[in-house]
């Protein structure tokens, strides 16, 4: 599929839904509140913006005040913070990591580079628009944003989670074909990850009309059973 065709795909945003049952509503709000108050941020420095995270995490700006702590393993993490540019090599790992994270998961793109290529817009090595590869909840502007801006952004995210508006992770399941298409465009048609996204989408009952499509067909045709990791030395 050509790049230009992919551009035409528009993703509809999912509005926050309120349930009819008032008790369920209260429950949802309670869950949102709890989620927003205990967030683990994946400790993965993908780019130069990561240099402002240690100050934000440690005593001076102290994001633990907000209940946010770094977490080293993707399985336990809630927030994937993309700190600036992602090289194509890193992007593969980031997608692997993103798919491994348990829902609900939130993605924040900081720095210019995650939006439109930033400084490295003409570089052959970096991906330009993060939202082509997986959905993003929040962007923080800056090159790089100061710790205060990062914390401000995290507070924004907390508000969104509390209001049950941070649902971008559902987009990934609903529009998997679009995201997979972009991934295939960049990594080649042999691209596959160990996570069975389609299966997960069905389990979560989030599979929609755009979950499957021509790209998932390609994936299913090339998908090979996982083998033990091989390393050449």
């Amino acid at each position: 599929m050509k790049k230009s065709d992919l551009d035409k795909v528009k993703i509809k945003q999912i509005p926050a839904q309120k349930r009819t049952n008032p008790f369920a509503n209260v429950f949802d709000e309670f869950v949102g509140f709890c989620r927003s108050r205990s967030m683990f941020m994946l400790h993965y420095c993908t780019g130069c913006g990561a240099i402002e995270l240690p100050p934000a995490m440690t005593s001076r700006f102290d994001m633990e005040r907000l209940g946010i702590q770094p977490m080293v393993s993707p399985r336990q993490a809630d927030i994937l913070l993309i700190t600036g540019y992602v090289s194509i090599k890193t992007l593969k790992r980031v997608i692997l990591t993103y798919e491994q994270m348990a829902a609900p998961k939130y993605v924040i793109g900081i720095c210019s580079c995650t939006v439109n290529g930033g400084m490295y817009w003409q570089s052959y090595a970096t991906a330009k628009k993060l939202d082509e590869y997986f959905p993003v909840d929040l962007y923080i502007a800056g090159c790089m944003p100061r710790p205060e801006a990062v914390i401000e952004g995290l507070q924004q995210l907390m508000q969104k989670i509390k209001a049950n508006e941070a649902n971008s992770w559902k987009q990934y399941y609903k529009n998997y074909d679009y995201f997979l298409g972009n991934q295939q465009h960049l990594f080649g048609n042999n691209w596959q990850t160990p996570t069975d996204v389609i299966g997960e989408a069905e389990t979560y009952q989030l599979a929609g009309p755009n979950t499957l499509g021509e790209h998932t067909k390609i994936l299913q045709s090339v998908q090979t059973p996982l083998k033990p990791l091989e390393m050449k030395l």
Partner: protein
Amino acid sequence: MSIAHSQNLNVLLQEIEGIQLTFHNPRRLRADIAAEALPALLALLRGRASYVHLSAISCVDWIDDNQFELVYHLWSYETSVLISAHIRVPRDPGIYLSVFDIYTPAAFFERDIHEMFGLYFEGSPDMSKFILTEWNGPPPMRKDFDSEKWVMETFSWQQYHPDWLQELEQQGGGIVSTPESIRAGNRPMENKS
């Protein structure tokens, strides 16, 4: 650098045939030699003239001459002089000898040059990919690889259309020149009048 050292070095370097020396400043000495003579020069500099530190190997792609220029930057802790040994090798087939046996760090630089320029070093311990393991294109540092063109063909950009822009477009204004058009060397004003 003391005069004694300089004379010593001069005497030593006489052994290499066809060497041309130019002092850029007292601490930067440029040596131009034939590609075949380089290993001998390096062996001499390392073995007998205290140039033990290989600071870097740089590669320059002189595409108009169809040549790669290799520059070996060597530093002597004793005389505090940096010798840059320049050689030229043909771009095609792009093969040269490794100096790994003389300077161990050369392995890294040679691997890097091989990856970025596609210049193969015979005898280097490892010529496998390193940084660009997931890159299938041509060696990117070659002058004939146009990074911007590749990017334009591969990626798409944000199509911003904020409210203020829509308002201006209704008034008859709007974007008159994008940065890309400026980079292409067009002066958009010219066509207007």
